[in-house]
């Protein structure tokens, strides 16, 4: 019988990604309710040293495949390795991060395992011995609760939502052979161009400072960058700003951009169109700065300032500098 809660951990350049610890935290809770173990799969090359770290986050057993063909990530190699170890061990639940890599891999595997996958979940719980996953649809205009009718029950979890908790335990490391067949590895990464901004991706940022058409041009974002630097935040944008060419595509928040849930979202000069609200209204705290008191963004804001953002934002930066140095 399928048993155990499994996570597929993620590492980049030999360091465990934060989402891996969040997955471990979520898995631990599910496993405790089911009275079962948490296992992790960790894939890459030269990564055995970091496998043990997962134990600190509540993982009992870490299945490690260390193989040059697993670095950098490709769908083909990782899907083959995870499929093999899952088939051999028959877990009941299999969790991924809803990251670029986790989404790509989980969907491929759900196809291979012929099972149900819930994408980008914001909550997972146990009812009648099965995992019930809660996830936004329509970019957050509505939520659904879903359950997989086949095993493993798969879900990808939204970054930044599930707390990672350290425990005193140390996990057991189990090495496995990913059994890769070179003929099946069809795609390859030919180039990696790293972003040098040093900021977290929007989907992983805990604070986002976002600007819209009210920024009046690309130069306007300078004041947002300054505030973001102090808060260790990432800068986002509305589609209006992206389409005007003021900000790169990767910065767009909303139904046809990134759906985000940071602890704090500061919207400056953004009216709050339905597509924008859909993408950010699950943020824990929302601040709006807009000169129009009727702007719909205020219906979602926890704190609002009705004023000219070019006066308010530099003052916010000054105040934050006093506080945070």
């Amino acid at each position, binding site marked *: 019988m399928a048993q155990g809660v499994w996570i597929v951990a993620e590492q980049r350049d030999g360091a465990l990604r934060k989402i891996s610890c969040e997955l471990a935290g979520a898995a631990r809770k599910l496993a405790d309710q089911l009275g079962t173990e948490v296992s992790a799969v960790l894939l890459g090359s030269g990564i055995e040293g970091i496998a043990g770290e997962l134990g600190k986050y509540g993982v009992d057993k870490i299945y490690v495949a260390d193989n040059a063909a697993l670095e950098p990530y490709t769908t083909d190699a990782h899907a083959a390795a995870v499929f093999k170890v899952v088939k051999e061990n028959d877990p009941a639940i299999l969790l991924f991060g809803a990251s670029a890599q986790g989404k790509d891999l989980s969907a491929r595997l*759900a196809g291979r395992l012929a099972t149900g996958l819930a994408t980008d979940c914001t909550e997972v719980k146990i009812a009648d011995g099965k995992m019930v996953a809660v996830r936004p649809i329509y970019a957050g205009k509505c939520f659904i609760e879903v359950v997989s009718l086949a095993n493993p029950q798969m879900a990808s979890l939204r970054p930044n939502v599930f707390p990672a908790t350290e425990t005193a335990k140390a996990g057991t490391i189990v090495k496995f052979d990913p059994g890769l067949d070179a003929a099946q590895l069809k795609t390859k990464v030919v180039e990696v161009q790293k972003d040098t901004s040093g900021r977290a991706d929007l989907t992983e940022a805990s604070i986002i400072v976002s600007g819209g058409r009210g920024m009046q041009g690309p130069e306007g974002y300078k004041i947002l960058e300054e505030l973001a630097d102090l808060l260790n935040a990432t800068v986002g944008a509305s589609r209006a700003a992206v389409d005007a060419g003021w900000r790169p595509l990767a910065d767009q928040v909303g139904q046809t951009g990134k759906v985000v849930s940071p602890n704090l979202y500061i919207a400056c000069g953004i009216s709050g169109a339905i597509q924008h609200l859909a993408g950010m209204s699950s943020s824990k705290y929302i601040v709006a700065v807009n000169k129009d008191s009727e702007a719909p963004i205020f219906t979602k804001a926890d704190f609002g300032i009705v004023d000219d953002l070019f006066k308010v934002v530099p003052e916010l930066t000054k105040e934050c500098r006093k506080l945070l140095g």
Partner: protein
Amino acid sequence: MNIVACVKQVPDTEAQIRVKPDGSGIDETGIKWVMNAYDEYGVEEALRLKEKHGGDVTIVSLGPARSLEAIRTALAMGADKGIHICDPALDGADAYVTASALAAAIKGIPFDVIFCGQRAVDDDAGQVGAMLAELLGIPQVTVVTKLEVNGASIRATKPVEGAQLLIESPLPCVITAQKGLNEPRYASLPGIMKAKKKPVDVKNAQALGVSAEAKLKVLKFVPPPARPPGKIISGDDAVAKASQLVGLLRQEAKVI
């Protein structure tokens, strides 16, 4: 080149989504249905490949009778023919059933490259493209912002957190389209007229030999949790308001 583009009809992003009182689904009254925004990028890229390399573009869509409009829109943009998988047994199909039906339909035609959207803006699953690739036994490159086809292989740019990857794959493969891939064209009036005469093949689950048995069951739909009413920090002095806001974020919200 034989190019396939998968197209899903979804509610317009302007639509307010209301959950039915019994939580069994969303209330569809008054909803305007359109082609999924990401599928527009897929169709556009398909047409550009055809213009450059020759060949033809087939549109495949699974959905109720109204989905024919989304197929016609793609045909009006310039695609050559359509396959409409239409069967009440497939209403509300999950990603696995959808991908199985699309795979069955596509297996029946020649294909070199298949486009999907990176996600459908209704269910936000982002699964069908990868599952389709798996079921057809071909590689995938998901969330693509730039594509180059060179003979029997492609090179695709894919943004991930903190980096851009350039990925090479042999053909045939599935590409899922992300904003940035291109600027989709509008259907011209002559295009719309011509589209009416282009062939659309209608198939049901039985003809395709696919099972409608779901892998993922929706227990209920719920409206988003209500946000408590916000606080407007008032006054004429921007400095005082900024200082008050920072205080609230520090002491009350504890987020900075």
